[in-house]
């Protein structure tokens, strides 16, 4: 069948007629032939376009790496290896050292994992092993929803809720217990390494728990039942048969969580205290790589900028390595079937062989003790062990249940806080249409104009809309390439590039866009166009991978049916495959839109922000996240605070709405297609 192999073959071959009917009259046949040639051109063009966009995704990754490498040149030439161990960041004397930022990044993301991982695994175990089936879906949906809360909202909420709690209730207690020794030195303030880590943990928890959950869920039911049939309790069955096989998936989730925590800028800037010094204590102020870039890039002069780029390069290397490690672990666990169980030394073999060298055990007759010389069977021994096992089972359920409750608390709290602080402003219709008011000190509260976030809403819609306009078609085409045209090495390179791009911290994408614009078109830095560009770069890989997954879910039979009808490949793709995958495609687009709409760091660096309505693509522009980030941090202006909370509420409603819609779509995608 020529049609299935390559559309190009059709040019020379006679038109394929599946029914084997007699040739059509000459005129019509040449007509049809003409059409086929035309179709082939389109087919080839489509194929070429798909390959080109896919190559573009790889090129994008390459560009990010090369541009940052190149732009840091000035700095690395000047400071060299001293950069890595230097402890000061002094733009006045042009002395730059990265050690405080590096150690701040490691400390905060390490601590964040320390807090998040046990809770996340607890949630995953509770949801896959213990929770009644009926509650599983709703609870899982709520945990997943926390992932849709933008980090700027977490940060803003945390300044109000987490920092005071940590500063007043947790740290003084810790300090008293430990006598203020070592890592507990320094007066507690609530704006320090500990607070930042706690909030980072809250942010990465849903990611880690979702990945762990799918790893646990992938262990077949028969393994659990095998354990149960030996008399294991449910928690013992989980321990015996589920946790170990899922280990590699869980580790991969932890690594990805580490990457996200290390790359997060907005939360850090809000909570760590922003002091460029080594984090000598949990209660010390500090800084991270991402935080330093976000803080200084917009105001920095060229020498400092290239030092910041060099910092960014470090972060890039770390996140890429972490992601490669995560992929490697999963691959390794899938590919290698280790020949040995956990005891690799062959100890049991040696011991048992001696055991058995005396010959077979005497065949016990009926009623004889079961094994030679064995003690009374443990089951028949007093019930103390039974109580221990039962208690352990209850403890496992209680602990994982508590973890799940704990994991849901932040979402509840952030929603409650946003409603109570932002609700007042958000009920005024004028809030959505008017500009930011003049700043108004807290004392004059009564007469303060409330104003609104009209420009911010406009800006967000504009930025996300512009970004989607480019990123969605590009991402879909690249996804089509991966799923429909891709073969061999090329595909895996494109897929790897898209995966790595997804994992690159957004602050680095912002940095990349700034550097490119400063070199190519300095006038466009700090404009709406720059912001849209950065968001587009963020969205492309997300849409690409989501498209690939959605298209792969379309049964091969649907493609073959279309090809067998004589559809050229591109028409089969456009007419059959893409429409059947529509739910999955829309889910992917929604996820990408949510990611862009909630993005802050990249927008701060590129679109800059503005209190005014949109004034042109070459002017700075506002956005919801920017209002929260900028006005929210001005704690002395009460009406700005209220506006920021209103913006947070609007953003939350939008993000949660999009996320719920995406879930519903995804559910539609798994249901059999009524029209197919």
């Amino acid at each position, binding site marked *: 069948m020529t049609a299935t192999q390559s559309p190009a073959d059709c040019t020379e071959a006679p038109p394929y007629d599946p029914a084997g009917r007699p040739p059509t009259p000459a005129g019509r046949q040449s007509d049809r032939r003409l059409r086929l040639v035309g179709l082939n051109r389109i087919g080839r063009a489509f194929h070429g376009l798909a390959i080109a966009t896919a190559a573009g995704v790889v090129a994008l990754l390459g560009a990010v790496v090369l541009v940052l490498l190149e732009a840091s040149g000035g700095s690395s030439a000047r400071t060299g290896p001293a950069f890595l161990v230097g402890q000061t960041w002094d733009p006045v004397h042009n002395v730059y050292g990265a050690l405080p930022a590096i150690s701040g990044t490691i400390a905060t993301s390490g601590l964040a994992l320390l807090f998040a991982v046990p809770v996340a695994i607890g949630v995953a175990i509770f949801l896959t092993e213990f929770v*009644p*089936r009926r509650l599983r879906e709703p609870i899982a949906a709520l945990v997943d929803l926390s992932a849709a809360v933008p980090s700027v909202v977490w940060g803003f909420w945390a300044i109000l809720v987490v920092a005071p709690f940590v500063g007043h209730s947790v740290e003084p207690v810790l300090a008293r217990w430990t006598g203020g020794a070592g890592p507990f030195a320094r007066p507690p303030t609530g704006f320090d390494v500990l607070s930042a880590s706690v909030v980072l943990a809250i942010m990465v928890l849903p990611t880690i728990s979702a990945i762990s959950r799918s790893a646990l869920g992938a262990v077949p039911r*028969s*393994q659990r*039942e*095998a*354990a*149960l*049939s*030996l*008399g*294991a*309790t449910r928690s*013992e069955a989980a321990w*015996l*048969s589920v946790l*170990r*096989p899922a280990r590699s998936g869980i580790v991969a989730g932890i690594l990805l969580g580490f990457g996200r925590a290390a790359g997060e800028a907005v939360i850090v800037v809000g909570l760590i205290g922003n002091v460029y010094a080594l984090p000598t204590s949990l209660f010390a102020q500090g800084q991270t790589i991402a935080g330093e870039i976000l803080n200084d890039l917009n105001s920095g002069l060229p020498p400092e900028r290239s030092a910041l780029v060099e910092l960014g390069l470090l972060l890039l290397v770390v996140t890429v390595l972490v992601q490669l490690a995560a992929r490697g672990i999963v691959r390794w666990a899938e590919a290698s*079937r*280790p*020949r*040995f*169980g*956990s*005891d*690799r*030394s*062959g*100890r*049991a*073999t040696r*011991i*048992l*062989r001696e*055991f*058995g060298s005396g010959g*077979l*055990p005497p065949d*016990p*007759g*009926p009623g004889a003790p*079961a*094994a*030679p*010389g*064995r*003690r009374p*069977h*443990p*089951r028949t*021994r007093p019930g103390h*062990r*039974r109580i221990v*096992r*039962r208690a352990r089972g209850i403890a496992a359920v209680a602990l994982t249940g508590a973890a799940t409750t704990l994991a849901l608390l932040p979402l509840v709290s952030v929603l409650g806080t946003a409603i109570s602080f932002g609700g007042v402003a958000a009920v005024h219709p004028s809030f959505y249409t008017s500009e930011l008011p003049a700043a108004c000190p807290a004392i004059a509260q009564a007469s303060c104009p409330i104003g609104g976030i009209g420009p911010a809403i406009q800006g967000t819609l504009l930025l996300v809309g512009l970004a989607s306009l480019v990123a969605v078609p590009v991402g879909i085409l690249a996804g089509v390439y991966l799923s429909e045209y891709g073969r061999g090495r090329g595909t895996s390179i494109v897929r790897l590039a898209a995966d790595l791009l997804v994992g690159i911290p957004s602050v680095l994408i912002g940095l990349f866009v700034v550097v490119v614009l400063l070199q190519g078109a300095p006038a466009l830095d700090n404009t709406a166009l720059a912001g849209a560009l950065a968001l587009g770069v963020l969205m492309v890989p997300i849409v690409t991978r989501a498209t690939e997954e959605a298209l792969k879910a379309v049964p091969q039979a649907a493609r073959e049916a279309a090809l067998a009808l004589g559809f050229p490949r591109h028409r089969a793709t456009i007419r059959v495959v893409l429409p059947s995958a529509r739910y999955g495609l829309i889910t992917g687009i929604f996820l990408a839109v949510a990611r862009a709409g909630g993005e802050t760091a990249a927008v701060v660096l590129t679109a800059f922000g503005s209190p005014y309505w949109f004034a042109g693509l070459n002017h700075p522009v506002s956005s919801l996240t920017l209002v929260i980030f900028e006005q929210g941090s001005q704690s002395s202006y009460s009406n700005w605070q209220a506006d920021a909370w209103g913006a947070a509420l609007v953003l939350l409603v939008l993000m949660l709405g999009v996320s719920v819609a995406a879930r519903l779509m995804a559910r539609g995608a798994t249901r059999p297609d009524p029209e197919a």
Partner: protein
Amino acid sequence: MSGKLNVDGLNAWYGRQQVLYDLTLDLPESGVTAVIGPSGCGKTTFLRCLNRLHDELPGARVDGRVLLDGTDVRRLEATEVRARIGMVFQKPTPFSHMSIYENVAAGPRLLGLHRREDLDRAVWASLVRAGLWEEVRDDVDALGTSLSGGQQQRLCIARAIAVEPEVLLMDEPCSALDPIATAKVERLIAELKERYTIVIVTHNLPQARRVSDRTAFFYLGKVVEFDRTSAVFDHPKEALTENYVQGRFG
């Protein structure tokens, strides 16, 4: 009341769908009981009700009584029931990440056997009794899943008997095995029946005839006939049974 396991008025459902109807049968203390019947008639479900594994499925429901030595299994702890009633599944299910040794030791460990010596003895004795020892003696640290299908199934039998159960349920233990491996498992059943009450589900009628002392014929979730194997096969009382054992069945 006589017998090891007495099933009395057992009904079972998956969601709304009832699959077992009012089963009543008494399984004797020793010997092998074969359960035969067409696909989907509820044989597996029956076994899973005996060791309360049916309770673990969401939406599944049972009523009626299963007495183990005269005590209703639902009044015992599920873990105790399952330690006393072992099970071997249709497809071999060695723990995928454990060595042969660890697979067999898993059950005794649950019951509190932790001294290396005791574990070694239990593992060794179980492997010997499951007829696997000679084949794995040089490599009990290899992964359980690295064995052949027949060896894996005998490993699962070893794992089940390491817990010293009183009853052993086997759900089509040979359906994935070649004739040689099947013969080994059958020989094993003949040896084990001295010490355990064995219930075996099989689609292989000659096998049921070879290994069992009694046979229950299930049809559409009901027991049609339950008697000595020779009686069921040679002088069935019911026409349905006769049709089935003579292979005249859809």
